[in-house]
């Protein structure tokens, strides 16, 4: 189906089902229960899952296939956001031109930075991309926001003001980003018993694009082009002596991943019309690297899992506070309750970084292939239990999935 083999089709269908049903899947706990804290099915976080999913899928096309580790990919996300907000400011709140423009700008930046950075490989390449991104961040934060030439609005972030031209903005249209009139914030809440589920227009726009982008990345993985990219990672010497010019292949991958990042940046602006310079900082670039490695570099689904993992912890764990803990353990005797809360206290709320750091270490120590390997191990365990041992398959290489 769609030019994919059976396994890939299954994977795509699974991802599509997960994306469409996310409002249900991510809200497993009744709204008023103590565990509702772990619900992630609210519009902002669902949008973030989809947007960072797109970002990391694109990053994985570069890093997972070619092995070129870019430490500056957040720059493309940042310029994508700025591009989209500028479209909002100058022309219209409709997200379609904004998103298209952010992809184009992402591509242009990626072409320029990639063209220079790909002259080097390995860590030298990483540092070149880092340097470009850090320069973009520094300039966006201060120099490009000076009153005479305010391109980025610095620390505050670029936003839409009432006195902006917005040439094609009609009075009947929402005063927020919209898709041909459908506000990105439009939300329908469904209550089923004790549960509440949110269906958000912005999320479904992001999710639809995530699926398209996931599908495209699948096609790229399985294409001759994808094979060439893996060849770059595997053996550049053999590649050149096979009559292949590695540079344009790597550059193409770089630009494609830059476009994915630009798209993600555009979507961030589309669901929340503000573009801040911090999203270009090296920590943001580092975050996408961590997402890819954590999930499983070079696999199709892994990076998305990594993105979900990190965003989940950032948004859910940082909001758990002592009060919440006391709520959970209220059934215990007082002394024990306080004791457990005291034990957990360093890991939640302001300590969510600590939890994340520990999890990074645990995953990379015990699951060298990232979260995907965890899934595979569980799958294998399951298969062994059911008696189907395909040992012969184990010796063969399974293509990246």
């Amino acid at each position: 189906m769609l030019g994919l083999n059976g396994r890939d089709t299954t994977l795509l269908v699974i991802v599509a089902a997960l994306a469409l049903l996310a409002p249900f899947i991510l809200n497993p706990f009744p709204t008023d229960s103590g565990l509702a804290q772990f619900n992630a099915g609210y519009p902002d976080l669902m949008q973030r899952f989809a947007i960072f999913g797109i970002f990391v899928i694109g990053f994985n096309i570069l890093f997972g296939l070619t092995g070129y580790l870019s430490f500056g990919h957040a720059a493309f996300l940042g310029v994508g956001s700025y591009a989209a907000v500028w479209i909002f400011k100058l022309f219209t709140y409709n997200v379609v031109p904004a998103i298209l423009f952010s992809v184009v700008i992402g591509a242009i930046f990626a072409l320029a930075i990639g063209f220079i950075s790909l002259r080097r490989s390995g860590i030298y390449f990483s540092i070149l991309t880092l340097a470009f991104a850090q320069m973009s961040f520094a300039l966006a934060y201060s120099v490009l926001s000076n009153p005479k030439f305010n391109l980025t609005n610095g620390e505050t972030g670029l936003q839409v003001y009432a006195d902006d031209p917005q040439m094609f903005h009609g009075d009947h249209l929402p005063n927020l980003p919209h898709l041909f009139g459908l506000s990105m914030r439009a939300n329908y809440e469904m209550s089923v018993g004790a549960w509440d589920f949110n269906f958000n227009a912005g999320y479904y726009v992001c999710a639809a694009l995530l699926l398209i982008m996931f599908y495209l990345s699948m096609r790229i993985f399985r294409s001759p082009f994808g094979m060439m990219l893996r060849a770059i990672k595997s053996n550049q010497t053999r590649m050149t002596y096979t009559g292949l010019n590695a540079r344009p292949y790597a550059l193409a991958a770089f630009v494609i991943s830059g476009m994915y990042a630009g798209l993600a940046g555009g979507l961030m602006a589309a669901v929340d019309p503000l573009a801040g310079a911090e999203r270009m900082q090296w920590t943001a670039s580092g975050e996408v690297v961590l997402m890819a490695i954590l999930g499983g570099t070079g696999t199709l689904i892994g990076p998305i899992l990594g993105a979900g993992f990190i965003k989940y912890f950032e948004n859910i764990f940082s909001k758990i506070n002592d009060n919440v803990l006391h709520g959970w353990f209220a059934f215990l005797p007082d002394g024990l309750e306080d004791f457990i809360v005291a034990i957990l206290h360093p890991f939640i709320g302001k300590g969510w970084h600590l939890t994340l750091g520990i999890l990074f270490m645990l995953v990379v120590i015990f699951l060298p292939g990232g979260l995907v390997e965890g899934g595979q191990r569980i799958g294998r365990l399951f298969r062994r239990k059911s008696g189907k041992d395909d040992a012969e398959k184990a010796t063969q290489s399974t293509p990246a999935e």
Partner: protein
Amino acid sequence: MGILEVKNVNKRFGGLQALGDVNLSVEENSVHAIIGPNGAGKSTLLNVLIGKLAPDTGSVLFDGQSVLGRKPYEINQMGISRVFQTPEIFGDLTVLENMMIPIFAKRDGAFRMRALESSVNEKEVLEQAGEMLESLNMADKRHFHSASMSRGDKRRLEIGMCLAQNPRLLLLDEPTAGMARADTNNTIDLLKQIHDERDITIAIIEHDMHVVFSLAQRITVLAQGSPLVEDTPDKIKGHPKVREAYLGESA
């Protein structure tokens, strides 16, 4: 005029004369070996031939065209394939994929975006790759992770990858270095078979005299960066200068 003409090539590294006035002509469809003691300049010469090193002076012509100043991938596209001392294959890829890449390179050139086509649908390429693996007796290993194979298999695969491009000249750099005797003999047989079956010129740089004398039709002896003699294997065996410079020490 041979298919490969090396004329007056000089290369210095600092104070060291790595190549001095090298003249060499490789006849089309011959097997030509270049031998010489360690430090004779064999590897330097090879690197000049494949565009990795630029000589200080002189010219290298392949089929009448200069290879100098061209990138290695351009030289390959002219019809020169190279086999390395340690097999250079795509270790992360399967054997079949390894075989497909040179076929793509031959068909699509140095760069072509085919990002949305599916490799599985490239029937022609798959067929060719399959045939090549068949002829290498590796068809059963097509889904193996190529890095996990034995060195002999890797060598076999590498040679196959070169041949899949139908090169006019195959350059081999000590193809049997570090191999067990059985693997060495297999490789010799493979090369013989290739030469018998195809219109191909083979230039081989080799240390192992057993390999050289089993394969070569002409031999150039390099010593201290310059060709000492060039002749048929029989003549070389008996040549006093060669014995003195080379064989005498290692016999």
